[in-house]
């Protein structure tokens, strides 16, 4: 009696599940859909998915979330995962997916044409969607941009008590430090982190926008910010944010740290062909132009120019490194931050 | 209804001492029997066992030859054909008097139901209160509604739990008389629990006296409590 009830309950819940999930899952060969786990939740991205659906008739199913949570979910689901594409910001996150053996080669002629080799992983393990520069931002009134040069110069005595930074748990900072480990070595990176901490005007806190606001508020003179946040602030609906953003200037240091947002193809993708179609579409000129115009990111497609606003900020002179190193050195970077007491 | 109780023993969970011990009692059709005792004597437990609201007893209870409680049998209270008037009446506060009385009339056509409710209201003299709600009635009126409700399905046996304890003293005297009349009219086997000798004298044909779970005396009023 108990058993039949249990079975009934299971059957009922399966039925409900089928209804709730819209019976979305048919066999791979008839597939007219593609499943995306995305940690990028911008309007441009959503518009791109809608356009893709209209163009191809392939339905894009999305689970949004923060990158680490989505990664953990994919890991737990293992070979049964329904994820086809995993899209996220930051090389550190991308590297974790690759390191966790959750990916396969994402390659096609069009992709290779659209995206330069430097912005693709070895064997196309990952493909960049956009580039993001972490630059020096300064108080336009009080700082002469000529006094700025490199990231390293920020550790000079001249800036004592004048720096503002975000916390060590920010993956942007982790990747920045990881890039120094890759290009200049661990010892250099350690000294740099220590030097920054010594020059701080206050304990690290808040997000990127908060650093810009703190400069406007006069709490410090110089900080490190991803450029697209400034773009968003300058175009904010809130007039006060615009005013704050107008008070600061952008300086591109020599070998500017460039991170990416990108995508990987799930190792167990059931809709591989569709996933590649979507990947190609996201790297197409049309979508890439939207990324730079509406989201103030640098396009990954070599045939697309940065938007006018981005050009007015100056010319990007990126670090020369294998981007995969950002992920590889992430753990080390976290350790170095802890040792430098960067909160 | 003929009722036969044999060797009935009952423990409340967690108690070492039985609430009832080896009760033997036979009740004939139409008899009015009082179970008399102090509070804690086990008299209410006996009533609840008869009603089927407790079922962990050992021993047996038969009602008209059907084993309602025994080692391998238990008849649910709703299947026993027994009516009960609760100490605080338990009239459903969300139903009016009519609905309360009709509640026990399950398998009747609507016309029959109406007729039976009317008959009951007449029996207890409450026709004008049909549409009132319980909280709008006095204590004595509520008690009569409870009685009408219990008698409506024509039970083989009526159980009354301290039927007068919630009433004022002078009201008690009047209602005892009324109750006796109603019971005689209804010709129903009645078992009632009380701690008041006056109740017993006014109503009972026979008395079972309980003390600490043991039946210490059984007989007519004269043979038992008047001594």
């Amino acid at each position, binding site marked *: 009696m108990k058993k039949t009830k249990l079975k009934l*309950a299971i059957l009922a819940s399966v039925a409900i599940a089928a209804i709730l*999930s819209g019976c979305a899952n048919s066999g791979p060969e008839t597939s007219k859909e593609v499943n995306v786990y995305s940690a990028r939740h911008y309007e441009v991205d959503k518009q791109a998915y809608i356009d893709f659906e209209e163009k191809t008739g392939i339905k894009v199913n999305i689970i949004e979330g923060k990158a*680490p949570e989505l*990664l953990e979910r994919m890991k737990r*689901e293992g070979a049964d995962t329904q994820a086809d594409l995993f899209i996220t910001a930051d090389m550190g996150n991308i590297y974790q997916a690759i390191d966790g053996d959750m990916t396969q080669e994402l390659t096609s002629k069009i992709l290779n044409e659209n995206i330069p080799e430097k912005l693709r992983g070895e064997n196309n393990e990952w493909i960049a969607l956009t580039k993001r520069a972490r630059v020096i931002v300064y108080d336009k009134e009080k700082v002469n941009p000529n006094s700025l040069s490199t990231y390293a110069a920020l550790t000079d005595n001249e800036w004592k008590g004048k720096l503002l930074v975000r916390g060590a748990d920010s993956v942007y900072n982790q990747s920045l430090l990881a890039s120094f480990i890759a290009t200049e070595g661990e010892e250099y990176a350690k000294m740099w982190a220590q030097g920054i901490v010594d020059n701080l005007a206050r304990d690290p806190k808040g997000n990127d926008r908060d650093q810009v606001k703190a400069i406007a508020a006069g709490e410090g003179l110089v900080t490190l910010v991803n450029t697209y946040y400034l773009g968003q602030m300058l175009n904010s609906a809130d007039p*006060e944010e615009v005013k704050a953003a107008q008070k600061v200037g952008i300086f591109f240091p020599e070998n500017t740290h460039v991170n990416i947002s990108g995508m990987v193809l799930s190792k167990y993708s059931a809709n591989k062909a569709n996933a590649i179609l979507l990947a190609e579409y996201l790297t197409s000129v049309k979508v890439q132009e939207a990324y730079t115009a509406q989201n103030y990111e640098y396009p990954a497609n070599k045939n697309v120019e940065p938007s006018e606003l981005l050009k007015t900020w100056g010319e990007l002179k990126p670090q020369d490194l294998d981007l995969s190193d950002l992920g590889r050195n992430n753990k080390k970077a976290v350790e170095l931050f802890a040792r430098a007491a960067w909160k | 209804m003929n009722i036969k109780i044999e060797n009935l023993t009952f423990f409340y969970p967690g108690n070492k001492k039985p609430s009832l011990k080896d009760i033997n009692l036979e009740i004939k059709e139409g008899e009015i029997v009082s179970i008399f005792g102090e509070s804690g004597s086990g008299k209410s437990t006996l009533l609840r066992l008869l009603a089927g609201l407790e079922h962990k007893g050992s021993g047996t209870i038969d009602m008209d030859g059907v084993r309602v409680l025994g080692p391998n049998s238990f008849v649910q209270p*709703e299947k026993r*054909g027994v009516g009960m008037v609760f100490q*605080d009446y338990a009239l459903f506060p969300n139903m009016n008097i009519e609905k309360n009385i009709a509640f026990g009339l399950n398998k009747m056509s609507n016309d029959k139901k109406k007729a039976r409710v009317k008959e009951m209201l007449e029996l207890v003299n409450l026709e004008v209160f049909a549409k009132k709600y319980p909280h709008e009635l006095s204590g004595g009126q509520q008690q009569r509604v409870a009685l009408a409700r219990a008698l409506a399905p024509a039970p083989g046996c009526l159980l009354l739990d301290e039927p007068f304890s919630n009433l004022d003293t002078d009201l008690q005297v009047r209602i005892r008389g009324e109750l006796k009349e109603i019971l005689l009219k209804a010709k129903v086997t009645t078992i009632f629990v009380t701690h008041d000798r006056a109740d017993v004298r006014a109503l009972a044909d026979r008395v079972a006296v309980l003390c600490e779970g043991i039946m210490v005396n059984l007989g007519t009023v004269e043979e038992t409590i008047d001594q």
Partner: protein
Amino acid sequence: MLKRKPGFYGIASTIIAILLIFPFGDLILQLFQKPNENWMEIKEFLLRDYIGNTLILVFFTALFSLLIGTTLAWLISAYDFPLRKFFRWALILPLAIPSYILAYTYASMSSYTGVVQVTLRSWLGTGLDQRYFNIMSMPGAIFILSISLMPYIYMILRAFMEGQSASLIESGRMLGKSHLGIFFKVVVPVSRAALVAGTSLVVLEVLSDYGVASYFGIQTFSTAIFRSWFSLGDIDSAIRLAAILMVFVLALLFLEKILRGRRSYSMSNTKHRPLSRKELKGPMAFLATSYAGIILLLGFLIPVGQLIYWAVLTYKDTLGNEAWILGLNTLGIAVISAIIILVFGIIIANYARLKNNLLSKIYSKISLLGYSIPGAVVAITMILFFIHLDRWLAPLYRIILPGAPALVLSMSLVLLVSAYVLRFLAVGFQSIDGGFERIGRKYHDASKMLGHGEASTFFRVDLPMLKPALLSGFSLVCIDIIKELPLALILRPFNFNTLATKVFDYANDERIPEASVHSLLIVLIVAIGILILNKTLDKEKNNEHKN
């Protein structure tokens, strides 16, 4: 006739209890494995910080919400002053703003570009120095959480003071005590049970808070669990942290139980009259109105005003069809989950009422389990459990639909709904249990004596009498689910978002003004729920007066 068959409620309660306890199996198994290196490091260096921060946050939040909640409840129930009637219900409204939204709003307002600093700059020519005035700090978190959780204490205490304590207060007055003297000498000691109940609710909410602590960068147990699991990929340590927290919570609940066990000495009489209030005049009346007004401003009017201002700036971009779909999603999932919770709650509470044995008591305790565990842990638990379940059921899926994927349930709303049920069953259960307690057994017995079986008795007698309890349980559960963040964030299936996840997405991208429209929708829905709840509770109280 069958002898003592287990009965529907027994079987159903057992199944529900097993379903509730089963997901924790994985968690408990992991706990017995050898700790890894990371854990040693956490234990040595970080654990003290987590414990310290959590304790500070819990202690001060409980203290301040207790102070504010008690004084307001006393003011409203013992005095008459201008706008008292309005404040009586309006002071519950801060509950309508999820604490993470309150945190985003206040943080933005007090930032350099926020209304506070901008106004000060335009008046004084200079703003407050951000080094000394920073809401994104421990005191800020305590402020946010106190003000948003205060209504729990206010509601419970107000109900208690308006209802039960009238005779005590009046006899105190007859004995010549001043109003204030009565407050400290009579009301506070007598309402201890209500105070403890309200405070433990606040404490549980603070312990499971993720939104405020993570946004303000405060390392608490909850954020540490997220961090070890997601940032360090160390599920083992996350589980250990969760286990410590669980032990802490269980100890707390136990303590509450002990304190509540002596409730009998506070009050048991069911006949109570409303308290006659003392009219305040002149400056005292002004003070009372101002105090209630300031709390309402801080807890509701100011943040909502700010949200409305932002909404005006951004609605063109954010108030599309999607907002309505999200609103429907949110409501839909809240209603579905609440109905399941009510059904489960009725079964377990009814079993406890009818049987009142050890087993039924254990089941009642199990139903409280989910609420005492932070959402993050429930999320971990449910993912692990459902992936196991799916793999086990996969053959069945393939029979129904050849070529079906292995993960069906865990990719569907079933996962999220189950998690909500596990987490919020306690909320519904408490309401229903209280309702059953008020009804007692006698009507049930009377109905059975009149020839009605268990089912008919339930639908014709118990259910109608339980209606107010069901309605308040339903609104409480819905309110909680609509505000809930971590579960929805982690467990949402494909193409499914709620208002709360949308707000978080915007906030996570540092776009607070854009989050305002969706925040306001949450506040609006929850506020309606709260007003329904308030009405129900008032009606119930009036009915009790009548009887």
